[in-house]
């Protein structure tokens, strides 16, 4: 098998995904170049000197190409075999951050490596979790209709998330929720999605509407439901119990759970960002992180500064954009973190709506392609893994783009393959190329 693989490294490889990968990374480097560009400087020289972010990103890309080649050369069985071990290793690394962790930007989620590089285990853990989840779901004895295995699956997905929250990396923690999409494909009851969405609506409603009015509204809805379903209730008393229980839960969430999360789980700045999304001010004195977060992250600018500037950058692009390197918002560095989290703004300012549509089209194409790849796998392991990859990428895009266009609170999540950052690029490269490797062996049944 080894010899065969050696001869035909490209056999069965999905070229479309590789092309999309290459195009997206190229766009990413171009975007970073736009952000960094300063007229008058000899960009070629700085490029060669490797001191700018885009040249660094290019170096990262070089590393990624090497890693990708190794992955493509590797045996697919390797991934199934080591998935649990890797997962355990990932969790260990994350735990290690609490001991040897380095504080970068207020989150203690980095492990310092030699040569000034830092490793963020939570990023790598995405890969390991995807593998472990696939491994678990593809076990012969796992019956995912069974509630017990559903819970185990959830625990596998959410364990790193919980650790991330403790590391002060809420954004990364959220990503792990994307595994539910993969689990849904494997038979998680749709009711869970509905409950999830309802919960989201309830949280948003809690933020927007005054709590007493919301309680009254909920009561009215419950009473209306009882009135409408009165005939069924007569026949079956349990419906009434369910409605009352639901009402009780809703009010409980609205009254206690949401304020508790905002005051105790989230940092002050996070709560403030979420509140500013719906146009409200968050009173930081209620936050128990108050004293700590104040010293950690002194905020000079108003909290909606980022979003406002980001929206201005995107909005000023218009239909066709201002042209390559002509974005005033980008050149003036008005958008903070533009080379990482807000990279989308430089693209949309320069190329306008047309550019954005093409760009998002590429992403959608990639996602659909991965879903298609997933569905053509013979082995559950590969399928679950493919869905995990699609979910992670999808989640990143959604949160990141929605954040820049002002539909979502600011959460530090990079745009896959585009944002500047070695960890992020490497993670997505590994994710995608493992998928490609697995897909190349789609005729095999992997366990």
């Amino acid at each position, binding site marked *: 098998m080894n010899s065969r693989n050696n001869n035909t490294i490209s056999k069965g490889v999905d070229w479309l995904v590789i092309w999309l990968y290459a195009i997206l990374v190229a766009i990413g480097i171009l975007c970073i170049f736009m952000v960094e560009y300063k007229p008058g400087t000899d960009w070629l020289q700085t490029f060669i000197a490797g001191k700018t972010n885009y040249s660094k990103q290019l170096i990262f890309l070089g590393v990624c190409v090497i890693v990708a080649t190794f992955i493509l050369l590797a045996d697919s069985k390797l991934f199934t075999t080591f998935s649990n071990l890797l997962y355990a290793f990932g969790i260990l690394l994350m735990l290690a951050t609490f001991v040897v962790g380095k504080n970068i930007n207020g989150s203690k989620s980095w492990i310092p490596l030699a040569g000034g590089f830092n490793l963020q285990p939570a990023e790598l853990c995405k890969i390991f979790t995807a593998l472990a989840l696939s491994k678990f779901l593809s076990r012969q004895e796992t019956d995912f209709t069974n509630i017990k295995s559903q819970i185990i699956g959830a625990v596998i997905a959410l364990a790193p998330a919980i650790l991330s929250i403790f590391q002060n990396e809420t954004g990364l923690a959220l990503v792990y929720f994307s595994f539910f999409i993969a689990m849904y494909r494997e038979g998680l009851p749709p009711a869970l999605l509905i409950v999830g969405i309802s919960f989201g609506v309830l949280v948003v409603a809690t933020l927007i509407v005054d709590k007493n009015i919301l309680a009254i509204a909920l009561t009215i809805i419950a009473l209306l439901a009882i009135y409408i379903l009165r005939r069924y209730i007569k026949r079956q008393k349990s419906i009434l119990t369910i409605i009352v229980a639901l009402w009780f839960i809703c009010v409980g969430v609205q009254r206690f759970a949401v304020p508790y999360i905002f005051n105790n789980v989230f940092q002050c700045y996070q709560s403030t960002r979420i509140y500013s999304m719906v146009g409200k001010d968050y009173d930081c004195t209620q936050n128990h992180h108050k004293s700590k977060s104040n010293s950690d992250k002194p905020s000079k600018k108003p909290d909606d500064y980022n979003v406002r500037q980001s929206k201005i950058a995107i909005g*000023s692009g218009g239909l066709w954009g201002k042209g390559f390197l002509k974005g005033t918002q980008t050149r003036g560095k008005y958008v903070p973190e533009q080379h990482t989290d807000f990279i989308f703004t430089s693209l949309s300012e320069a190329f306008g709506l047309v550019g954005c549509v093409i760009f998002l089209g590429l992403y959608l194409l990639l996602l659909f392609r991965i879903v298609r790849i997933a569905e053509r796998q013979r082995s559950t392991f590969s399928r679950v893994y493919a869905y995990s990859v699609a979910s992670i990428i999808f989640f990143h895009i959604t949160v990141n783009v929605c954040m820049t266009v002002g539909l979502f609170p600011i959460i530090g999540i990079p745009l896959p393959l585009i944002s500047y950052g070695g960890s992020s690029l490497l993670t997505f490269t590994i994710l995608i190329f493992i998928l490609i490797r697995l897909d190349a062996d789609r005729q095999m049944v992997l366990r």
Partner: protein
Amino acid sequence: MPVFNQNRSRVIQVIFTSIFIIILVQLIHLQILSPKYKLAAENNAIYRKIVYPDRGIIFDRKRRPLLENIMSFDLVVTPSEAKGTDTLDLCTLLQIDTTEYKRRMRDIIFKNTAVRPSVFEPLLTQELYAKLYENMYKFPGFILSERKSRAYPYNIGANVLGYIAEVDTSFLRRHKEEGYEQGDYTGMTGLERSYEKVLMGQRGIQRFIKDNRSRIQGAYENGVFDTAAVAGKNLYTSIDVELQKLGEKLMNNKVGSIVAIDPKTGGILCMVSAPTYNPNYLTGNQRKKHFAQLLLDPRLPFNNRAIGNKYSPGSTFKTVSGIIGLTEGVITERTTVTCNGAFQGCGTGKPKCLDKGTFDFKNAIAHSDNTYFSTVYKRILDQPRYGGADSALTVFNKYAYTFGLGHKLGIDIPSEKAGNLPISKYYRKIFGQKWYSCNVISNAIGQGEVQTTLLQLANVMAIIANKGWYYTPHIVDSIQGGDEYNMLDAFKTKHYTDKNIPDSIFDAVQDGMQAVVDYGTAAASKIDGIVMCGKTGTVENYAKINGVMVKQQDHSFFGAFAPRDNPKIAIAVICENSGQGAWAAAPIASFLVEQYLRDSISGTERKTKLEEFANKNLIPYLMRMQMQKNDSLKRVKENEIIQQQMNKENNDSTETDEPALQEVKPKVPIKKIPSKNKISAVAIIIDEQRKIQKAIARKV
């Protein structure tokens, strides 16, 4: 492996798509339907830098600059970048304390945000600039920014040139259409004001891209939208620097003014208003302080007395009434009138005359005979052919009007007064319908209601010199690059006096005026070798003191032109409260005439006399009192401060010492304060001062 839930892949694809559609909708909303973001981006990123043009320079008749532009430096700070500044060092250099530093910073941030550069200390002195320049590395966020300011190399002509000042909000309201902006300078008085349009030039605008900290990133669109600054036009005036300098020197410590006109062109050769100030006083960083000082000065240095004060012209007016009398035929050159000490025509014995005797026209002028000209005036008003005093006065005024009296001449600097030619309606109000010549006889000798500005008087001299015509007196001869706004057109029309006046009448008047200088009232001011025609004037005047009119020392007047043939200079001088015309004004005029015609003063005797005159202090008594009062006010204030300090010290000291000290205490400071009453009076004046200071604050 059985494939369950395959349909769920569709659901997942729908979820993917729907999220992308939501994003797309929001993108359309932002990029297509909200033009405000485009505007916001421009407001963010485009910095419009105003490029100030150089103001035009004003030259004298020999192209010497009366004022010019010099480069000076402002200390400019961007507060947000000034965090690491060595505050203490900076304060020591600027000689301010840290509270002042903090106060200024607060004001700057409040007015102009922390990220934009604002002026911290304007117009640094050379010395301070050098010191700061060496130490700039200690003051991050501070830069030395150059700017042009006015400089006056000869220290003269403050009232003529005027000053410039930063525009205030009310100015901006009044001049909305002219494109001024906060921080611009505009001419406030003098030539700076009247020729603002040409002097100011045209501002240029450069567009830059700025970054989030307002740092300039480069030109916007490579500068295609930039406009260049167009420098202001230079003005070429008729002022003669040497003459102006001498005039100001002679008028030092005197109150009054001098106007000299080139009768051929109407160009003003010098215009001195005294007391004046050094125009450089209003340019440096002490401008505000100096401005307040000058505004509070009882000598009113901002007042241009040559055009802003109306005087009774006194005997100099006799030339005009003489010409009118001759033209109307009420007298001839041979008409003689005898004075026995006073004019008896009205039975009041007024006005008196100084020299008794019988005078013909020439000698009446030479000796300034009041009786002669009262007779002439009375004859005009009593002429039966006019049919009454009303219409006779109208005839008289009509002549006087063509001599440029009773109306603004239209000189090219602002705040000119019109003077006054009283009309019959005015007299009817006072003397009733049946008023007659004797009511107004003092007009004959320029002591009545007739009032002229000194400029008008100088112009009358020019008219007599020209024998019947004049150009409107003006300071600016030409504007660099042409008179684009037709500002000089008014100075190119020749104005004639009544055509009925033949040259022979002017000759007669000139004969008389020459006699004035040759052997008449101003004989002492005769210049050897120059035929000068002049007329003295001694004007009685009164000042209101505590509501009572009190006679003051006479104003000294002199009007003249020279040389008689082909006159080159017509001049009028007033020296307030300095006695007879021959005593102060005439010598001053003679010095200036000689200076202008010969470029120097000849003879050691005259030179010493000149110095003697220049050093004479003829500040009127009342003004001196007022100045003293102000000075003593200052002293009183200082004393109060000393007293307070002493009180404080006393309170600090032990109780046993107190009685002894208190006995001593009053003696020291109160000695200088005469009485308690004075202190209370002082308090009122302080209030007034405060009012004035408020006014200053508004003006500055």
